[in-house]
């Protein structure tokens, strides 16, 4: 699949570090950017901090970012240059209303996890295999 970059929307430092740690131990190392909130994420996608190239993958927990997260995903889906981003929702809080809302936005995956390091490692192992299989 070649090089690709990921934008992680996450406000917990330990989880960001765990995810960075996972990729530092792997042969395929996508570029990982992180934003602690949806405003910073939007700035990195279409604002003053715009990333070039646009990340292929967005990871977000809509149950932490709540309405702002769903609004961000809606905006991405309606933006001509951003709508093709693959969105993966990773969450430890099973709120069915948010789940139903994001599944309507054609996300690539809704992934429940406890964020415990062992489970997170397995989750990213599977995701990494999947990302390395698909074409962009």
């Amino acid at each position: 699949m070649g090089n690709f970059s990921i934008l992680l929307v996450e406000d917990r430092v330990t989880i960001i570090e765990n995810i960075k740690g996972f990729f530092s131990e792997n042969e395929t190392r996508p570029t990982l950017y992180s934003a602690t909130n949806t405003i910073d994420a939007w700035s990195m996608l279409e604002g003053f901090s715009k990333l070039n190239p646009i990340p292929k993958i967005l990871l977000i927990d809509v149950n932490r970012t709540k309405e702002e997260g769903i609004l961000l995903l809606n905006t991405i889906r309606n933006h001509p240059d951003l709508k093709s981003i693959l969105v993966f929702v990773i969450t430890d809080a099973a709120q069915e209303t948010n789940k139903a809302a994001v599944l309507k936005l054609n996300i690539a995956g809704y992934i429940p996890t406890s964020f415990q390091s062992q489970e997170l490692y397995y989750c990213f192992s599977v995701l990494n295999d999947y990302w390395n299989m698909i074409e962009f």
Partner: protein
Amino acid sequence: MNQKLVNILLVEDDEVDVMNVKRAFSKNNIMNPLFVAGNGIEALEMLENQIIPLPKIIILDINMPKMNGIEFLKIMREKEKLKNISVFVMTTSNEDTDKINAYNLNVAGYILKPLSFEKFLTSVATLKNFWQLCEM
């Protein structure tokens, strides 16, 4: 995905490829009900006339007679009942235009068909792991 055994629709015109998918499912112990349509028109008829139960997953070929995969996707995404189904493209087409069109129509992944059955088995195993990680 495992618990509910969601229905899967394979849209594929090549009978050998259909057989390969069935064999790969069997070898990977994927027990989900698998339905097959030979092209986009047939798939739409099956979905719209409820000839098959609504699938959560569609595996879609691109190059097919009568209606190709991209044409099928465009129509599917406009239909309220069908637009949220997860679609995984599995094709021999390495054309950038097909990849761009597919991701703009929010497929969950674009997979090039491997040339050997052994590699195809590995790809299907990766897909299985990913499906098991996700809630649908």
